[in-house]
């Protein structure tokens, strides 16, 4: 039984969000390369910002895909996004400075194949399926790569085998990637899963996506204390918390705007002497 999921009309066109998300996250993820260029780790937080940009784009893609009523729930779209994205991200990470671009290309291939299978073999016959799964796989790849760069200071896995960066070996070997995987998968699907319905508004959904992205950045920033120097990790943590507070307050504001009415709930005081 397909549950009818409704989405609000209007807002920024999806293609515009796609371009901003893709270009923005690509630029942000390359800014972490300043770490290698200047031989510091202060720019690790750009990786997290890249994943936030990608997650906002991914939330809008999920909105488009799931408005067709998949019948499997919104989380399944987030799971397949990260499932194909993590393969592409790790494959791309082996190619040095080309990592983000290779990851995007590989993710697009895997996503397009999944979309083709979903439409032509499994027969979902949803018009936007192929393009949406391609976009989602790319979003998943960028998100994983961005958070890897944030926790380890670089996305260049070649150092790992040249005896250079010890920290990156620990990033993979300790299984932080599994945690990144789940944090990103929950962040990508939660926004639309929480906001869907007849009164869904694009700006509110995307604000929640950004909030989820910053929320995922906070644990990653905490973990990065173990892998990069103290001050850079502190910068990451402060930026994550500030970003989260700002987007959370904006989201509450937008929720109040869209709500019919709200009650600033206060605890009910017991009358003296009992009721």
């Amino acid at each position: 039984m397909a549950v009818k999921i409704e989405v609000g009309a209007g807002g920024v066109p999806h293609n515009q969000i796609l371009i901003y998300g893709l270009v923005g996250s690509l630029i942000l993820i390359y800014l972490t390369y300043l770490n290698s260029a200047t031989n510091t780790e202060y720019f690790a937080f750009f990786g997290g910002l890249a994943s936030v940009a990608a997650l906002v784009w991914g939330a809008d893609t999920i909105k488009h895909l799931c408005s067709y009523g998949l019948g499997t729930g919104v989380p399944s779209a987030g799971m397949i996004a990260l499932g194909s994205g993590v393969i592409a991200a790790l494959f791309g990470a082996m190619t040095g400075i080309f990592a983000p671009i290779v990851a995007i290309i590989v993710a697009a291939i895997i996503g397009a194949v999944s979309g083709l299978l979903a439409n032509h073999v499994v027969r979902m016959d949803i018009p936007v399926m192929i393009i949406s799964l391609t976009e989602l796989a790319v979003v998943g790849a960028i998100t994983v790569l961005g958070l890897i760069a944030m926790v380890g200071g670089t996305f260049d896995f070649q150092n790992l085998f040249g005896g250079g960066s010890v920290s990156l070996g620990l990033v993979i070997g300790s299984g932080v990637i599994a945690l990144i995987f789940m944090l990103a998968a929950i962040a990508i699907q939660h926004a639309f899963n929480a906001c869907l319905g007849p009164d869904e508004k694009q700006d509110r959904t995307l604000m929640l996506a950004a909030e989820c992205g910053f929320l995922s950045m906070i644990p990653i920033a905490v973990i990065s204390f173990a892998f990069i120097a103290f001050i850079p990790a502190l910068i990451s943590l402060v930026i994550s918390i500030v970003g989260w507070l700002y987007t959370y307050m904006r989201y509450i504001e937008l929720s109040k705007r869209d709500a019919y009415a709200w009650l600033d709930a206060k605890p009910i005081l017991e009358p003296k002497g009992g009721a």
Partner: protein
Amino acid sequence: MSALGGPAQTAGFQPPTGMGIAVSIILIIVALALAFFLIQMAGLLALVGIVIGGVLIGFGVHFVPVGGAPAAMGQAPGIATGVAMLAAGAGLAGLFGGAWAAPLGFPLALAGGAIGGGLLMAITCTMVNVIYIFGMGIPSASGKVDKDPITGDTFPEFKSQGTEGHGLPFISWVGGVIGGALGGLGGTLIYLELLEVYQAQVLVSASIAVSLAGVFAIGMFLMNAVLAAYNITGTIEGPHDPKFKRFPRAIIASATASAVAGIFAIALFEVLMVFIESNLMGAL
């Protein structure tokens, strides 16, 4: 803008399109050829193992009784959550069991994975029924068949009006355990094949090989599980459900998706070597 349409909800079985089958076969053959080209027979065998693992996952998902939101309200039989969550739970439990047993040899690791996944589903199904029967006060009744194929219990007199059945009949319980076992087996098989490929690399330390193989196995597991979920469009009662007959489509889809994802996982270190060599050449 409201819901614009949706997947075809016809009860009949729509076969895959010709293009879908052709693309699947071409992709599988290309992936196998690439695997052979990259690391000869070992790569080919590893990819075959990964494809078999993916097919087991895709097939296993069809056994799991997924009820979704209606089940949470006691209006449909099954476990009250989506396929992705259930499959992830069973598959990861199986994967952990199998990975723990990996040093003990191939057969034992596979058995560990299957038992891990099956055990998780057995506990889940049992507790679901405890909550349904003792918590919500509803009997188990399937809406799709009149008689339980295993126990012979009849359902129509227990089924509430206006529902598609409720609770978790014995056949669904059995289906859940079989599905969990198959999923755990498939996930562990993918993990073991990748682990073998990575451990053959001289550059790679043990912890990195284990971690990479594990993450790739999780990724492929979820891809296959979601494609299978798309195949059953949401809810299924178990092996007695008419939707179960759709599984050939999911097998084709899982095999292709695993082959494509698997070739990237296998080629990982070959790509790395190419880049390291080109860097060295540049340095010289």
